[in-house]
């Protein structure tokens, strides 16, 4: 089902026309209402009128997450506070949290793009959506809530955590769609099996999973465990929250709602725009947001883009690839770029391995040392030392093949690596650089 066929399937020339009209409007508002943008434009001798078409976009300097922190809490807002309907904030583990705000129209837009998201993923108004994203300052919970409401589905707002209760409500209410992080869906399936419930036999048929990068192998594992479709969704608070991009059931890239959020892929080092298919950093410009317009925001996520319309569903929105990693959780080990997602792929390709792992990086006498802790599940365990040593060496060899870096693999007991309710903690970097 396509929620907004007029826009989601718009011919590319009309789409570009709409984007350019909206771009001119948002640039004008940002310049006139946000002191930061006025200063940046003036410093670069740039006038809002200079931005006429999408080709002019790269004249505008990038916006960084730090610009939001430096203008904490409300310096980046383009509307007075009394027009603000809702305020969210990131956890802010380092320094000030990142504050994002919405007008009433922004909330309507958020509900709309999230209703598109649900429909694109394969949900319908007949579904019972159990929303296990955290409600509160985190945008996941409310974003999914508004979208399901707009779509007309029934919402069970469980929020995250209390896994036993989640499982009971799935069984008692007959929930058909689960929304949560991919790692939490694995955790739920494990808890279910530990308490004698086979997740495959529940009414859940669709999972809309996001807020952290996950691999194709992890998708296969989740789909197998739950006997459901696992659909990847993408978004970020600064832009709107969830609702920026989502897969259709063909799972062939995430359709990015570019009539509201204009994407570019750039080389993170040079800032140059990259052609379709090349992997780089995603940069987004909000075209219609009122409270917090952002121009060329450096998202920090690594992906690639294609502008080919989707053959499976007919949407003309561009598609981004599954997020490959983040520019800031990329580890540089002895000069080689390593993404946790690559290590995850290796572990899952080794037969039967569960996605519970922890990457520990140390520096010993000037040399980086990479250790991967892998939980030994019953499936992996053999009663003989040589069997386990073979497993360990196989993982280690595969990692070296894929990454080009030697890693010490340490087999650890189940449940010793911390489980996450929200974003999975996969890396401990002990290096003092």
């Amino acid at each position, binding site marked *: 089902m396509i929620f907004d066929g007029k826009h989601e399937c718009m011919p590319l020339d009309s789409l570009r026309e709409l984007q350019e009209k909206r771009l001119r409007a948002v640039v004008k508002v940002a310049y006139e209402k946000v002191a930061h943008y006025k200063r940046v434009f003036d410093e670069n001798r740039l006038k809002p009128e200079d931005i006429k078409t999408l080709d002019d976009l790269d004249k505008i300097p990038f916006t960084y997450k730090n610009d939001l922190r430096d203008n904490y809490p409300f310096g980046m807002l383009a509307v007075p506070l009394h027009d603000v309907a809702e305020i969210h904030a990131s956890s802010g583990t380092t320094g000030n949290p990142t504050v994002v705000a919405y007008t009433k129209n922004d909330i309507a837009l958020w509900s709309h793009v999230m209703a598109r998201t649900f429909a694109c993923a394969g949900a319908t108004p007949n579904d019972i959506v159990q929303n296990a994203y955290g409600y509160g300052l985190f945008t996941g919970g409310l974003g999914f809530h508004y979208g399901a409401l707009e779509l007309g589905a029934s919402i069970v707002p469980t929020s995250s955590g209390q896994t036993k209760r989640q499982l009971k409500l799935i069984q008692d209410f007959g929930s058909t769609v689960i929304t949560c992080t991919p790692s939490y869906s694995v955790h739920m399936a494990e808890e279910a099996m530990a308490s004698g419930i086979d997740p495959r036999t529940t009414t859940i048929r669709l999972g809309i999973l996001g807020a952290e990068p996950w691999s194709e192998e992890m998708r296969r594992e989740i789909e197998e465990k739950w006997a459901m479709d696992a659909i990847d969704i993408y978004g970020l608070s600064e832009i709107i929250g969830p609702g920026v991009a989502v897969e259709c059931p063909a799972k062939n890239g995430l359709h990015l709602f570019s009539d509201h959020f204009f994407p570019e892929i750039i080389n993170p080092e040079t800032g140059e725009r990259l052609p379709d298919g090349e992997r780089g950093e995603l940069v987004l410009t909000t075209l219609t947001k009122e409270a917090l317009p952002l121009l060329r925001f450096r998202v920090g996520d690594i992906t690639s883009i294609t502008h080919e319309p989707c053959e499976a569903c007919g949407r003309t929105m561009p598609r981004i690839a599954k997020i490959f990693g983040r520019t800031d959780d990329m580890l540089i080990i002895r000069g080689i770029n390593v993404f946790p997602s690559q290590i995850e792929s290796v572990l899952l390709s080794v037969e039967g391995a569960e996605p519970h792992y922890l990457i520990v990086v140390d520096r010993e006498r000037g040399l980086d040392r990479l250790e991967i802790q892998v939980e030994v599940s019953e499936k992996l365990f053999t*009663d003989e030392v040589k069997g386990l040593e073979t497993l360990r060496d196989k993982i280690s060899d595969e990692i070296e093949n894929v990454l080009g870096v030697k890693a010490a693999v340490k087999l650890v007991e189940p449940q010793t690596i911390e489980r996450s309710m929200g974003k999975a903690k996969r890396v401990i970097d002990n290096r003092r650089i």
Partner: protein
Amino acid sequence: MKIKQLSLFLENTSGRLVDALSLLGDARINIRALSLSDTSDFGILRLIVNDVDRAYQILTDKHYTVLKSDVVAVEVEDRPGALVDILRILKDAEINVEYTYAFVERGGEQAILIFRFDDMEKGIRALQGKGVTLLTADQVRTR
């Protein structure tokens, strides 16, 4: 004539052995024999207990990785050379011993050898062909 042994995956850190074994002790499960294989990172603890199913349940409830596997229990006289006699039979039949451990029976006259072979069926046939006594689970429990 196979009996069930429990194998436990343990990290090679202090306290892991006592943690696991105290769970069994608290549940009044008696350990008839044990053996520990270790590497620098991890170990495998192998146990012969009086109640395999309950011990398995207790350990898996506490998220230990546990495996029930088949071994054979061979009864020999507790005298010099008895083990060698058994190993010769296996050597002649070209059977490889993956691991073995032993304990002495309560009376002190007989010893029990626990074996795991690369080919269990072939090993059992070879020993029985030479008239060696293989014990059942019940016999191991009571002796």
